[in-house]
Every structure is written in C-alpha cells, then in structure tokens.
C-alpha cells in the first residue's frame, strides 16, 4: 500500500507542471526584481549598476514617501472600517434577522464580485459635479449644501475611494464574520443571558472574545488586500488630483511603465512587499498575544 502512496515518478509527474509554472513565473521574477533594484535603466535601453542608490533615492523622494504614507493611511483606515462594518452586519444577521438573513446576506454580498472598473465608473457618476449633477450632489444641494467637486478635491477624493471600497466589500466581511459567529454555540449565549448579560455587554464580554480568531483572519485578509490596492484607485481617481491619491502600487506602475525606470520601479515594489510582510507579521504577533490573554 505504501508503495503506491510513495510512487516517486507519479509525484513528479503530478507536481511538475504546477511547480514549474509557479517557479518560473513567480519565484524567479521575485528574485530577479530584487536584482533590478541595484540597477538603473530598462530592458530596452540597457542597465548600469548603481548599488544601493535606488534605496537612497526612495527615501529622499517626497512623492514616494507620500505614496507610502497614503498606502498606510488607506490600508489602516479601510481595514478598521471593513472589519467594523462587517462585524456590525454579522451581528445584524445573527441576532436580529436570525434565520431570515439569507436574502439580505446574498444581496449585500453581490458588489463583492462586481468588476472594479464598472463600480468605479458608477461611483464617478454618483459623485459627479459637472457637467451633470450626480445623485450625491443633488441630495447635498437639496439639503442646502454647496455643489462639491468630490473627485477634484484631494481631501474628498480620498473619502470617495474609502466609501466606494466599503460599499464593495462590507457584504464580504459580513458573510466572513457571520460564518464565525454562527459557530458560537447557542447554549453559551443562553447561559450568558441567564447570567443577566444584556445586549452590548453580551456582545462585549461574550460574543467578541469568542469570535477573535475569525476577526484576526478578517483583519489579516483585509490589510493584505488594502496594502495592494490598485484597481479601485486607478479606475476611480487614477491617483489624482495630482498625486494626492497615489498608493505605492500605482507609483511603481508609473515609474516602471510610464517612465521606463525598471530599477527604481523594482525598488518601490520591493518596499511594498517588505511592508506587506512586516505588517502581517506585526498583526499576527499583537493579535495572538491579545487572544491568549482574553
């Protein structure tokens, strides 16, 4: 029996295609990119070796630092909002709608799978100021406010991105956290209720501690996705106005493909990868610590 499970040739035949494609198209390019960070130039014009100059340039480049800070600000804020909104929805499904939540869950989940570009074009129209007045501005003006050029003002355009991403993703986090909540046994909730725990105290002292593991995976998944944000922003604001809403991912894309600076582009990509790694490890550490304490 063991002979069949330990068949070397079969293992190789089955594993080789996936491993080969994965190694050649993902693993090798990752190290190749790290090599690019020590070069200047591009594939067409040729390269010169510059050592660590690209890294020095990165930390002296105010646009790059702005992009880094934008990415962090966006990722932290959106992660908090996504998980809080998702958790709110999950509580709504479990404790308010109960067994009737299926249709609401299904409808609120739908935006998750919509193509980002279509959603972004839709939000551009919803928040439009000119030449036509979109729904949001119409409502603001009906309430006595001023016509606001949301996408033309750096302060507002950031919030439009946040609102749109929240619109797209809250249903996803709702279902993800709902799956964690329904696993809490009914008798635990019932016992807490008999002990006199009501509503918010019940949520705080019973429900939240019990759903910490699924909250942790939601936070990690969210931060990992939001640090890599690209589609949403390219389609909604294209980084503008100016470079006000440019994250690292888009800055890398611009330096590499618009300006043909492979070395510097790779350096930006490498910093982004490093950030993803650090943030994930950091969250894992701090949340795991909390979970064991609680």
């Amino acid at each position: 029996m063991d002979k069949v499970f330990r068949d070397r040739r079969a293992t190789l035949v089955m594993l080789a295609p996936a491993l080969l494609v994965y190694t050649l198209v993902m693993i090798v390019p990752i190290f190749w990119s790290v090599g690019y960070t020590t070069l200047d130039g591009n594939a067409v014009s040729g390269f010169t070796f510059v050592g660590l100059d690209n890294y020095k340039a990165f930390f002296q480049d105010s646009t790059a630092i702005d992009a880094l800070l934008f990415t962090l600000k966006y990722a932290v804020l959106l992660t908090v909002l996504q998980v809080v909104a998702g958790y709110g929805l999950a509580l709504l499904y479990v404790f308010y709608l109960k067994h009737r939540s299926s249709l609401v869950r299904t409808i609120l989940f739908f935006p998750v799978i919509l193509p980002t570009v279509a959603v972004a074009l839709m939000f551009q129209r919803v928040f439009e100021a000119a030449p036509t007045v979109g729904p949001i501005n119409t409502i603001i003006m009906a309430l006595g406010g001023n016509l606001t050029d949301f996408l033309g003002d750096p302060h507002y355009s950031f919030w439009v991105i946040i609102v749109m991403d929240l619109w797209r993703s809250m249903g996803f986090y709702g279902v993800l956290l709902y799956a964690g909540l329904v696993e809490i046994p009914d008798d635990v909730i019932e016992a807490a209720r008999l002990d006199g725990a009501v509503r918010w105290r019940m949520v705080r002292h019973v429900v939240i501690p019990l759903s910490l593991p699924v909250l942790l995976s939601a936070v990690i998944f969210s931060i990992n996705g939001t640090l890599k944000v690209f589609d949403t922003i390219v389609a909604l604001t294209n980084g503008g106005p100016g470079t006000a809403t440019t994250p690292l991912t888009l800055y890398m894309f611009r330096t590499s493909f618009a300006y043909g600076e492979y070395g510097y582009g790779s350096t930006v990509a490498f910093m982004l990868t490093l950030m993803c790694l650090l943030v994930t490890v950091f969250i894992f550490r701090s949340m795991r610590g909390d979970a064991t304490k609680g």
Partner: protein
Amino acid sequence: MTIVSRSWSARLRRLPGVLGVGFLLLLVVYPMLWILLGSFKQQDEFLSEPFWALPRSWSLTNYVSAFVDGGLGIYIRNSALVVFPSLLLILAFGVAAAFALEVLVWKGRSSVLVLFLAGIMVPTQMILLPLFAVYYRAGLTGSLWPLVITYTAIGMPLSVFMLATYMRAVPREVFEAAILDGASVYRIFWSVTIPLVRNAIFTVALVQFFFLWNDLLIALTFVSRSDLRTIQVGLLNFTGQYGSVDYGPMFAGISVSVFGTLALYAFLNKRVMAGLTAGAVKG
C-alpha cells in the same frame, strides 16, 4: 393587553430595524438600478433632467453604440479568450499538484505547500518587470499569451492550497480501499479523487474566474494593442474614446458588466459566497 395591541406595539418596536435594513439594501441596489435606467437615456436627458428621472423611451441604441462603436463585444471576446484557457490550466495543474502534495507521501511535501502559500502574500508588482522584459524579448507583447501565462501562475497558490485543504477532508481509508482493489496511482487520482472533490474543483474555478475576469493590473501591463484589450481595460478607456463623456453608451457598458455578473450570481450565489470567504480564511 389584548393580542392585537401587543402585536402592534411589537411591530412598532421593530420599525427602526426594518427601516435600517431597508436603507442598507437601498444603498447597495439603487446605484446599480440607476445605472440600468441611465443606459436607456439620451445625452440631453443626462444634461437637463434630474438624476431620478425615468428614461423617455426604452430604446437600445446605447447598447448598440457600446458594442459597435465602443468595441465592447471585442473586449468581452478577448477576456473570454484569456480567462477560460487560464482557468483550465489552473485547474488541471492545481488539482494534480494538490493530489501530489496531500494524498501522496514524500519528504518535503509540507515545505513545498508552504512555498506555494507564500505566493498569496507577494504583491503582483514584484513580478511585473522581469516578466515584461521576458515577454518583450520573446516577442509575445503583441498577443494574449502573456496574460494566459501570468494568470495561470498567479492562480496557482490559492488554488493549490484550497484544493489540498479539500483533499485533506477525504478519509484516508477511501484511498487505501482503492489500492486494495488494485488501483494504480493514476487511477486513484482520476477515478477516486477527482469525483470526490468535484464540488471543490467547481468552487475553486468560480473563485478564480472572478479574480481573472475582474483583473486590471496584469491586463493593463501586458496588453499593448487596443484590439487586444480585455473587458476591464476596455471599460476603463471607454471615457477617453468619445472625447467628452458620452453618458448613454458608458452607462450601457457598465450595465452589461454589472448585470452579466448578476446573471451568474443569481444561480450560483451560495457557491460564490462560500468559495470566496473560504479562500480568505485559509489565505
């Protein structure tokens, strides 16, 4: 207190909750409905009528214009030409690799699984430049091949990991019984494992389909010719093509994209929700 009045007060107490849920649903559904209504409006209706106005007529001219002048049909065809072959390769390679990693026994298999898993975290930007250089040298930049190759590789980590997890749930005794009956490895793979994880394969296919169909970054990087644009890149360039914004055809283009997805979701929503959230918890 009579039963009637109690039920009325109960209903009244429920009112804020019902209104809240209704508002949430409206928030999600209305923008899409608004786009659909807009896809029937003419340019002057956008400029002179308020946003809530219904279209004057229900003509399909905007859709015709989106497909004929906007090239929407070509974009959808390009997307299909790229996404379905990639999906097929992802599934074929992924199922085989998951079998080798989960069912077969050899030294180092858990490290290889971790190696696959690590790929989920790395931003795509980290592999774009070397791939661009290679595709350029190989003369592939004027074709859809770069997309198929890149999609297949990018789909590997999550697919292998999800399929391996599903295979772990199959009791070992099933495979052992097949061996006692004299089945070879390939036979166990083809006639035992695949039928058992058929549902999982379908779920993974669905998840990957949405990732690939909705991809913008890779399509934007490797497609240089406008007639090879995928639906996402095409839609993104819809604005520029008409100079000033031509609202009707653009609303029609968005509608096709949104309601095409809805058609799929209407039938498969349970699978889609389960599959996508499973990918998140495990990833």
